[in-house]
């Protein structure tokens, strides 16, 4: 779960406006922390498709995306710019993303239901998307078992921090990266406060 931090957006705005060098320094520090995690997550992407039927030929978007290791790796990134507010009104300021559809599938498949969706078959009626309509009753189970184990925290049954790529890399940091990010923000804040206070005092003198 993200840590709610008050004032980071304002800090970044202020840094960009009054101390661009500190803004660059903060971005660089965050990159130093997050880049290894991104690289590690990219290393977890299998070169070949984990299932023979999930071929590596690309297809137009909108359909079930074909497996493409290169594209998945390219889609794993980190961002330090504030996002648009979500429906709950929260702006994400620092994040690691797995952007591609294929990557998202490989990352999260089996997170909600480790045995695959309930099977109803191809001839079942209705338009529900929460069920398996494959002719193979074990399709979901076989798909998930071929993708391998999920990593990350499942505390309290909350599976939202589990995955095979970025969440795995994040779990491997054991919280050190999280602490390092906040330490970096705090250091920058301190420097900024000191600098603005100094200017104020000098003017007063």
């Amino acid at each position: 779960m993200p840590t709610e931090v008050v004032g980071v957006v304002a800090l970044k705005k202020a840094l960009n406006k009054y101390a661009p060098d500190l803004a660059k320094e903060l971005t660089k520090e965050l990159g130093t922390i997050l880049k290894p995690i991104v690289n590690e997550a990219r290393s977890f992407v299998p070169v070949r498709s984990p299932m023979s039927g999930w071929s590596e030929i690309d297809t137009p978007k909108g359909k079930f995306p074909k497996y493409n290791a290169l594209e998945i790796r390219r889609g794993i990134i980190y961002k330090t710019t504030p996002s648009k507010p979500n429906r709950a009104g929260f702006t994400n300021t620092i994040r690691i993303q797995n952007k591609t559809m294929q990557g998202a599938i490989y990352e999260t498949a089996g997170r909600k239901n480790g045995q695959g969706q309930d099977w109803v078959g191809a001839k079942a009626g209705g338009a529900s998307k929460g069920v398996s309509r494959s002719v193979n009753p074990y399709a979901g189970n076989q798909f998930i078992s071929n993708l391998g184990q999920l990593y990350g925290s499942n505390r309290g049954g909350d599976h939202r921090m589990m995955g095979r790529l970025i969440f795995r890399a994040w779990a491997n940091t054991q919280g050190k990266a999280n602490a390092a990010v906040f330490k970096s923000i705090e250091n920058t804040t301190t420097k900024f406060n000191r600098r603005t206070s100094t200017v104020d005092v000098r003017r007063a003198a």
Partner: protein
Amino acid sequence: MSNVAINIAAEFTGKNAFKKAETSVDRLNKTTKGLSKTLTRTFGTAAVLAFGKASVKAFAEDDKAATSLGITLKNLDLAYGSNIGTVNGFINRLEAQTGVLDDELRPAMDRLLRATGSVTKAQELLGLALDVAAGTGKSVTQVSQSLQKAYLGQTQALGRLGVGLSKAELTSSSFEEIQQRLTVLFAGQASAAAETFAGQLDKLTIAANNAKETIGKGLYDGISALSGGGATAATDNIDKLANGIGDTLANVGSLINKLKDLKPVLIGLGIVAAAAFLPMTTAIVGAIFLLGKLNQLLDKSLFKQGIIPNGMGNISMTVSSQDTQKADAAALKAQKAMTALTKTQAANQAKITKDKKLQAAIDKANLALNKGEGVFDIEKIQIAAALTNQAQLLGKATDAAQVLQIANDTARLNVKRSMLALEEAIASKDETAIIAATAKLNEDLKILNALSNQKTQMVAIESILKGLQPKDLIDQNNLDEALRKIREMLALLAQVKTPTITPPAGGGGGGGGGGFIQTPNGIRPTTEPRSIAEINKATEALGGVISVIGENGKEFTKLVDGLPPVFQTVEDAGAFNALVNSFANGAMNPFNAGSFRAAEGGSLFNSGAVGSRDRDININVQTGIGDPEAIARAIEDAIRQSYQRGTSSTGLLAV
């Protein structure tokens, strides 16, 4: 675009949805204003009461933990002097330094004391536990438990913390070595964490908790003193205090109601007072307004110069709490899913067992069927019967359409037979047999295909019919071969030069050798017959290949070992003698023949190179087995044709 992301830091900025919600809440607040006033009074009292109780409870728990630690020290014989106070003091200092609550530190210390039995060692390990906890993100309780187990020899729990030590390292190293390694790996983590903003917040929390405990202690002491001591009395007094506060607030409300009656008098007094103090009030209000305005102008001026008034201030950070209800619901859902999965697995297992039993029964049945099939293959029998029937029908066919139909049916039966053969070959896993059976099936299918398409191919039909007919029923080739042999034999016979018989001249008396004379018994040579010795001599001159006449003139004695005496009398050998003479005179060429019959004796003998006048020629006619008429007709036809061609003199053989 997918939305899989790890959001490390988020900030509530508030947007339209929240503004709407806020408006709605405001409206609700106005509607329920009167109610909220009442509730405020009630909850205000309750809040005071709750805080009081919580404070006392916090103090009680803290006191209990401290007492428990003291008892542990006593049980371990470590409670000498002021040791209990020293340990508690150490914990308090540690709490202040690291920002970790004493609620965690005391049980951890307690645990480590029980494991090590040494205050110094326990303090050392507690410090290490704090470092490891700060470094790994695990709780102090978890780390201290792991260290306790590792101290007692179980290092697995320590490995699960992810401290960077391999299983081999943990099992092969002593605890001192592990401790040393951990001390190096996590040096300064706790103090560093305490210096962070989060650590400072923790310290603030600790201060608040300690304040609560202190307040609780004060409340407890005060109320206990009022009630003469004892926890029960103190609790009763807290309830009484709450009731008293509530009554007081109610009395204040009544007072306000009473003031309503005195409202005109109070207004009048107010007007008089306002008139008296108007100049001073106006001056104070004006001064406040001017100061405010001046401050605003100053801030604007500073901001324009790139200075943020009063700096950014401290950035506050708070960790959002877990949604308990969501977590509970998720846990319940997971539990239900697990139960359902267990049921499904049990059902599947039962089905597998049932299927296995059924499969075993089927295997047994198949075994029995295979045994029966070996004895009585109804399918093969049916095909053979059908083919026989087709053969009979072929004999009765009168036109081409019937022949074509028979060919069709026969081709189908052949296909079926080939399929069976192929199945058997596959079952036997014999590669050669499979290839051969496949080729045969393909051939049959080609023929059937040709017939099915109504493209009558005479070659195909001929091949079908040829396969249908028994090969030894009418074999023209063999018959031709037999006739050829007959012709050869007749040609040979024609080449035989029979001796010219010249009637003897009347009274010519004994001319030269080689003449014949007429006697009452027939014609005889003019020369005297040769003696037996002469004949034997002539026979020996031939190479001694055959028997000669014995001394008794009646029997042949064998001159060659292994040859039985065949002729019984000299008369029997008459024809033979003549034959030998013919050979001796060069009148007959030797040839191989099968069997000869002596003209006189009628006995059979086998011989090599001989010639004869009277002989039976046995011809093997490979035809018409079971049908003597057909054989007779075939032979008769052949001989007749031979006679017509002029190769046979009589046209008949001896019958």
